[in-house]
């Protein structure tokens, strides 16, 4: 079908300001996301990554340009599901109840909701915790619930806002793998925001590199690594290392252009390590 070839999400010259126009968050952002594609938005803090996600979700509207999801202005709803940096679970509801909340918004009846919630919890390995409350779970488990909630509505687009940034390294590793596995099974489009270059290269098919203040597209690169990556770790591959180096060089270039390095130092701990030809 033709529809599958046309972009699922398209941004054209999108700009957005905050605080009555005082703060320019993003400027002239244009890129597409095709159905089933895994796209990462990468860049130092202050480049408007989260703003772009919220625009795609329809939580905010652009000041300039146009955002289209499936050919129309986006509206929050079951076609778009968001996973946040913190799980954002309702503490007064059980784990299953939190997922059922999202399903109720889709208009499912009680029985369907319960079955679906349990099935999704099974998929993220938390079936035994259906009746637990969020505070009884670890951070990684909470984030799994957040992922299950987003997947439960069977979205066409999964929006992820630094979902693994607050987790410890081991949990992050496991969840990345699980995400790739689920994506290969379900093939929804994913827009993944991160400030972790390696994570972006590891997960995505395409990377939109952004530069900060205001957020603009620096470069859009295709990541051509053998699939499925959750079965074979691509990190030792020369292509992986090359891609990572390339992106780092772009960011060093931003630093040379006068982007504040303190911001970068916080976001990228590795920038401080001595490497040849920095700048």
């Amino acid at each position, binding site marked *: 079908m033709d529809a599958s070839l046309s972009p699922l999400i398209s941004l054209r010259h999108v700009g957005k300001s905050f605080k009555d126009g005082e703060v320019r968050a993003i400027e002239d952002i244009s890129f597409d996301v095709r159905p089933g594609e895994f796209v990462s938005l990468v860049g130092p803090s202050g480049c408007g990554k989260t703003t772009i996600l919220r625009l795609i979700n329809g939580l905010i509207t652009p000041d300039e340009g146009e955002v289209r999801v499936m050919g129309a202005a986006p509206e929050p709803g079951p076609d778009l599901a968001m996973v*946040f940096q913190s799980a954002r679970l*309702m*503490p*007064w509801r059980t784990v299953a109840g939190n997922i059922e909340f999202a399903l109720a918004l889709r208009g499912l009846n009680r029985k369907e909701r319960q079955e679906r919630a349990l099935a999704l919890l099974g998929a993220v390995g938390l079936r035994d915790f259906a009746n637990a409350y969020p*505070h009884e779970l670890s951070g990684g488990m909470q984030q799994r619930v957040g992922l299950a909630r987003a997947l439960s509505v069977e979205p066409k687009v999964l929006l992820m806002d630094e979902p693994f940034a607050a987790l410890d390294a081991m949990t992050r590793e496991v969840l990345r793998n699980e995400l790739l596995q689920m994506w290969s099974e379900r093939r929804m489009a994913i827009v993944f925001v991160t400030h972790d270059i390696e994570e972006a290269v590891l997960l995505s098919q395409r990377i939109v590199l952004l530069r900060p203040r205001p957020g603009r597209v620096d470069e859009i690169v295709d990541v051509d690594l053998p699939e499925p990556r959750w079965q074979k770790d691509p990190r030792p591959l020369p292509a992986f290392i090359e891609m990572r180096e390339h992106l780092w060089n772009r960011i060093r270039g931003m630093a040379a252009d006068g982007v504040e390095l303190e911001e970068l130092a916080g976001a990228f701990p590795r920038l401080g390590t001595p490497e040849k030809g920095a700048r």
Partner: protein
Amino acid sequence: MTEELATPVNRPETLLPPKVEKASATNTIAERARKRRLRERNLVVGVQVALVIALLAGMYALNATSGNLVMPRPDDVLRRSIQMWSDGTMIRALGESLTVLGLGFLLSATTGIAVGVLLGGFRFVGRVLDPFVNAMNSTPGAAFIPLIIVWFGLYSEAKIVVVWNAAVFPILINTAAGISNANKDLVEMGRAFGAKRATLFWNVMVPDALPSILSGLRIGAAISTVGTVIAELTMAQSGLGGLLASAGNRFQMDKYFAVVIVLMVLGTLLTALLRYAETRFARWRVSLSDNR
């Protein structure tokens, strides 16, 4: 911390029966922790008992030096309490007070929560009414008693209005604050999944405000008892407040103290009950603050 240090000391040189040793080590750790907790609790209770004894001794001493008018003997208070409970005076008075207290509190809880929800949920209404609510809340409740007497008379309905007037504002303000300060992240989450305004309000903002509403109710209940006694003292004398007044006027200090004790217990029970409700219905908030 000390328990953890103790473990390696107990470990034998040969690790032949490791399982048994480990189990007994954890047993002794648990044992020590339990003993330490018990010791601490005993100490607290011991000091509390000592304080009560000192208080009673002080009452006896004051009674011996200054006479019955300044301080009744504790055993007289006890005797009088038994008499008042058995001849029905106390039960009747308690019934009257509880009626005023209960109805006044119920009225202030329903109106306070309803108006609070309105104020917290609709930013415009909240902004318009904020100065008025603050002005009313800042005025001492007793200031309205003459007006209430003129409008409602001296009997139960007027007393209920006094209680309502005292308790409604803390409930209202806590409810409104709880809702307007509802967790922004959760509200955004709800919006992102396509929740409409009404759903967001009832399924996210109001439950999120529940702990705040419950502490408003707890404060309101405490103020309700104050309002009840003030109403009973200043309007047609009735209930426990009326007993206080009549005993005080006749310098019957043993009777007076017997009533004060009932009020003390009543207030404590009421607050304990609502605290229990708070932990019961807002479990997550409590366990969040307990998780150090």
